């Protein structure tokens, strides 16, 4: 055990210093922080611009030209926000001299069609158009309601409904905050990246030791199983370190973001989802690490090992390929099957946990199958590792792999 731990410690500290690992581990929190800072800085500037334009628009009335004669007929009068013009030309001059923010032509057949045309200078900006539209709508609504005597009916016409939704189970349904699934989903993606990063380092480590013949020296000191176990342990801890850094960053950046954006203030990540995600991370890492160790041992070079390992990583990444189906229907049959199948379960289940309610029985089935897959995977990897690690200059072919698996 001591030698296994020595290998684990060595792998951990050597890979902690790898530039690619450092860059990847630090880039996530840095990108998050930069994103928040940019949002705070530029977000404030954009909001300021919009508000100033709102204020400028609100300060000026909107004009209208009534060709239908209907507004006069119902006694509609212009208020401070609205000015009546006799002709299109008068309204156009008022617009050009910025007395009004725009004007509306109400055609002869307005009552039949509801069609009106608004004239403005230049392009409107997001939000400002909406404000103008509401003023016109309010003005027309007030005129129309002058023909309705019943105040209750008037009130209902102004606000036809106050909608509330109730779940058939009897609970009041809460409106879904997009952050409720975006953040856990993003976090599950980070965990998956960490699985592939750590197991990728394992492949690299095995292939390099085989390529530069260090393995011969190592195996004069410890058994192939001790070597493989030490590597899996050390690089597993490496992945955990990465996740802890990312967790800390999400926590810290989240706190900064919550202080800056009101929409984030009430957001909380479900701890049970985090716990289950960590379980799937560890199990997923063990499964992929076993395959990577076998791929490294069965190949003669790192490149060959990567080609061999890609068979497994492509299968593992199928859940990403089915992302659109997953978002459209997280309960689809194929999605459920993939969350049970050991090679795809870590990724698929982490994603399902992020956005869907998954029953306990499904989680148990998925974990049991995953553990069974790990047992078989590690058993096979150990056999291939033991045979392949000392074979130089030739890759283990299908027949040799089969022979290795059958050997005691």
């Amino acid at each position, binding site marked *: 055990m001591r030698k296994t731990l*020595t290998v684990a410690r060595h792998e951990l500290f050597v890979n902690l210093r790898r530039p690619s690992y450092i860059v990847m581990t630090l880039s996530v929190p840095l990108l998050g922080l930069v994103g928040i800072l940019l949002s705070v800085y530029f977000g404030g500037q954009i909001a300021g611009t919009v508000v100033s334009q709102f204020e400028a628009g609100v300060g000026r009335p909107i004009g209208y030209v009534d060709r239908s004669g209907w507004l006069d007929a119902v006694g509609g009068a212009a208020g401070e926000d609205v000015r009546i013009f006799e002709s299109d030309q008068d309204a156009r001059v008022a617009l050009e001299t910025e007395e009004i923010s725009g004007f509306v032509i109400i055609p002869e057949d307005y009552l039949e069609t509801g069609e009106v045309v608004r004239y403005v200078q230049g392009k409107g900006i997001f939000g400002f158009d909406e404000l103008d539209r509401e003023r016109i709508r309010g003005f027309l609504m007030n005129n129309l309601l002058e023909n309705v005597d019943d105040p209750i009916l008037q009130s209902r016409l102004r606000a036809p409904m106050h909608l509330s939704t109730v779940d058939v189970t009897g609970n009041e349904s809460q409106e879904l905050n997009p952050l409720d699934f975006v953040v856990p989903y993003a976090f599950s993606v980070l965990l998956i990246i960490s699985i592939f990063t750590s197991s990728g380092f394992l492949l690299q480590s095995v292939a390099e030791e085989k390529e530069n013949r260090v393995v011969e020296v190592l195996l004069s000191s410890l058994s192939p199983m001790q070597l493989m176990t030490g590597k899996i342990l050390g690089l597993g801890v490496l992945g955990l370190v990465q996740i802890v850094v990312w967790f800390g960053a999400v926590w810290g950046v989240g706190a900064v973001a919550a202080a800056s954006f009101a929409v984030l203030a009430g957001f909380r990540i479900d701890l049970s989802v985090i716990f289950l995600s960590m379980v799937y991370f560890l199990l997923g890492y063990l499964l992929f690490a076993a395959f990577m160790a076998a791929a490294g041992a069965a190949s003669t070079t790192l490149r060959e090992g990567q080609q061999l390992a890609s068979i497994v990583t492509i299968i593992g990444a199928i859940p990403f390929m089915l992302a659109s189906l997953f978002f459209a229907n997280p309960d689809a049959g194929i999605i459920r099957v993939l969350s049970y199948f050991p090679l795809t379960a870590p990724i698929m289940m982490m994603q399902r946990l992020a956005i869907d309610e998954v029953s306990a029985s499904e989680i148990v089935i998925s974990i049991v199958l995953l553990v069974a897959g790990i047992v078989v995977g590690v058993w096979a990897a150990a056999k291939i590792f033991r045979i392949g690690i000392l074979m130089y200059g030739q890759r283990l072919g299908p027949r040799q792999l089969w022979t290795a698996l059958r050997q005691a």
Partner: protein
Amino acid sequence: MSAIDADGVTKRYGHFEAVKDLSFSVQSGEIFGLRGPNGAGKTSTIRMLMDIIKPDAGRIWLLGESPSAATKNRIGYLPEERGLYKGLRVMDTLVYLAALKDVPRDEAEQRAEALLRRVNLWSNRQDKISALSKGMQQKLQFVVTILHDPDLVVLDEPFQGLDPINTELIQEMIAALPAQGKTVILSTHMMNQVEQLCDRILLMDHGRSVLYGRLDDIKQQFANNAVILRAAGDFDNLHGVRHVNDHGRYYELILEDEATPQDVLRQLVQIGTEVREFEVAKPALNEIFIEVVGNELEIGDLSPTISNPRSPISKAKRA
């Protein structure tokens, strides 16, 4: 006492028998030569000694017990092809590989300092291994092998990539190991090093032992009854001399079966010959190797050894 006892050891890979019914022993405190052409089964034999692979038949006793995890700490192994982490620093490599032999860090650093100074690599202790020359890496590999003070040292081509000065340095260090109670197995294509260092040898071919025993006995076994003579005169009429080969700078006197070199030397003194050099002709190990393995040896297996042009075997081959 034996450091190694191998009895009827066989190793198969599928239908291929890499080692066939091999038996030999290595005495404690001796330097034992292991030779053979490529594919002779040396690597499989060494790996079985290291407990990296298990024999399919037969038994091995290593330092008095079966090869196991426990015996691994008592063995130092220098593989034929250098095995070092190119991206690691010298001292980090030594400390890590020593830790795998259960040597504490402080102790490893102390021993490393002494050994690195001995092989003139102390100033490179913080260098990355990729920055070292091939010769320096080979010296470092040797330091790795003996850093944990092993009882048994297995050296597979320890002189590869070394210049003559460093070859001599490593040769001196190997020669000093038996005096420290260490047993050495030396596998090398450099026959002159084997001849200078080894007490006994095992020559393998096609997985079998084809020569095994004391080096002097083996040489005697392959020697023709001949002497090498540097002197002026006519030697055809000497009693007991069957034939004289004139090689220009020296003569080779082929003796009758019953004649001895002493008889010839006595006659030379009696007739007043001025003898500049008189030597009993013995074949070089390389020539014995070629003769034994001979016809089955591929060109690529021929070792870059210094051959002895005076050897009867050499001449027989050339003829």
